[in-house]
């Protein structure tokens, strides 16, 4: 048994970029946007199920349909990562435009999610999709801007490990 925990300094990391080569947890913020100050992250791989009944069976039958894949998280709004760092010097579009810019422009984002930090051996999921569900909110009981972020994954997750 090998428990993956984030208390040993090897936190969950999400890297976003506009090119598959840039979405690399090993190179991190140099090539892509590491989403900072995440409170939580959820990777959703929900296999679709179609159920049907037949007259000769006493229970429903089921067949699988394509999975809905999604990454959702909540993060403290960091001005640079949310609104972008601008294009001087030119960098990955996610760094330039930030989460909001990429969502607004409907930019395809390539991602890597590392389960156990950026060091060699950490399990990673790779894929691409679109940013959705930004809803920054603040109130006097929680006077720091926080936003949910959803990445609607186009296609499947690919599992690997940091080299």
């Amino acid at each position, binding site marked *: 048994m090998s428990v993956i925990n984030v208390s040993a300094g090897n936190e969950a990391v999400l890297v976003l970029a506009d090119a598959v080569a840039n979405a690399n947890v090993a190179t991190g913020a140099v090539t892509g946007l590491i989403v900072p100050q995440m409170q939580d992250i959820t990777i959703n791989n929900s296999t679709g199920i179609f159920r049907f009944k037949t007259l000769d069976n006493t229970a429903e039958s089921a067949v699988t349909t394509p999975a809905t894949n999604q990454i959702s998280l909540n993060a403290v709004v960091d001005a640079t990562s949310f609104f972008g760092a601008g294009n001087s010097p030119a960098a990955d579009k996610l760094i330039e435009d930030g989460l909001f810019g990429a969502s607004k422009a409907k930019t395809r984002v390539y991602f890597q999610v590392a389960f156990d930090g950026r060091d060699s051996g950490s399990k990673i999921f790779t894929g691409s999709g679109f940013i959705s569900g930004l809803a920054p909110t603040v109130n006097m009981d929680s006077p720091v801007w*926080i936003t949910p972020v959803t990445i609607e994954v186009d296609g499947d997750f690919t599992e690997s490990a940091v080299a």
Partner: protein
Amino acid sequence: MRSQLLTQIITNVANSNISVSQELPWNSGGQVLYLKNKKHFYLDEEQESREDFIKTLDKNDVEQKTITLNGYLTVDAKNQPGDISSVVANIIAANSVITTTIDNSVEVTTEIDNDDITYTFEYNFITII
């Protein structure tokens, strides 16, 4: 923050029956100054505490900083100054001079010992860092 608050309290209670001391409420001859020097307001040193406000996975936690200052004023309980109510209100109102906070509160408590009444003002200033 203490000097800013103290300056505002001095302004707010000018022309009243109360004086404001710049000194900390230290002990003199085994007795704290605000008990020894009645009708003198003393403001203690800042106390600071920090705690996690939002925990994050990358350990860049958002912290809440609370600065607490206690002020003391002792007067004769039987013959309180005629303007004590407005003095207390003005000492409380001085907290509005600190503006960079998300929460700014004052609590006043009183304690009677023999023929003295001591007003204790607890100022709390909360900021996010």
